């Protein structure tokens, strides 16, 4: 897979530590946060987190892309790679800035029914539904035992 892990700005806060040193670690974090100031917040702004799920019928790709116009969202499936492209436009006063975010996810081409891919964007989260082909669905065969 061609995906590189995305790290949340304060990853330690997601995983509560039970070590007796967690208090000390917290202090060190705080020290770094106050010393680095805004630098600590500027983590890879051109990346966004992607989740993959599946059930019996579909494979789902969920991407957190807050504040993007639906017209600036592009989802493409090319040769087994799902490309998600999003352009974020921000206007500061009269200046308008825009930058494009890109992420590719490898999907098994043979297993996806390419005709029926759908995508929804809600609360800043893009969900792409990739239906599985009939052949790729798990099949249950009951064998009679004599």
């Amino acid at each position: 897979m061609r995906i590189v892990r995305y790290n949340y700005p304060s990853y330690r806060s997601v995983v509560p530590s039970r070590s007796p040193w967690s208090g000390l670690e917290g202090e060190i974090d705080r020290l770094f946060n106050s010393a680095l100031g805004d630098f600590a917040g500027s983590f890879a702004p051109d990346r966004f987190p992607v989740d993959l799920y599946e059930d019996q019928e579909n494979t789902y790709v969920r991407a957190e892309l807050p504040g993007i116009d639906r017209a600036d969202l592009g989802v493409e499936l090319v040769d087994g790679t799902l490309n998600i492209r999003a352009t974020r436009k921000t206007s500061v006063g009269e200046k308008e800035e825009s930058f494009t975010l890109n992420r590719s996810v490898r999907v098994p081409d043979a297993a996806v029914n390419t005709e029926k891919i759908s995508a929804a964007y809600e609360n800043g989260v893009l969900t792409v539904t990739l239906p599985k082909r009939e052949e790729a669905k798990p099949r249950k065969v009951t064998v009679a035992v004599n």
Partner: protein
Amino acid sequence: MSLLTSLVPSFTRSAAPVAREGAPVVKPVYDLAETDEGYALTAQLPGVSKDGLELTAETGAITITGRRTWKQPEAWATLYRESTDAAYELVLTHDNAVDIDKIHAELRDGVLRVALPKAEAVKPRKIQVG
């Protein structure tokens, strides 16, 4: 053990970033801009709808809490995960320079925009020299 905890204070201290309810939280990506009239706060809260958002303005601090509305359906098996289910929490302290009665907030597509007007007393004033 009590001697040890009294000698090493960090043993008794709880981990700093855990929220009040005990669940872990993440600090959202945010941006704060200042104008003459006030401050413009932009926070990225993907997955949060209006129902899950709480904005509390107290004297001295503004707290934003956002819970994700989407829950993973039971039939969905996780293949790969980068996001978290943790709620967002952002606490911004201020020196009462914000007029908390006139705060205006708007949530659209997972982006929260808050206008924090400055209190009259701290706005720059031109004084005519006679």
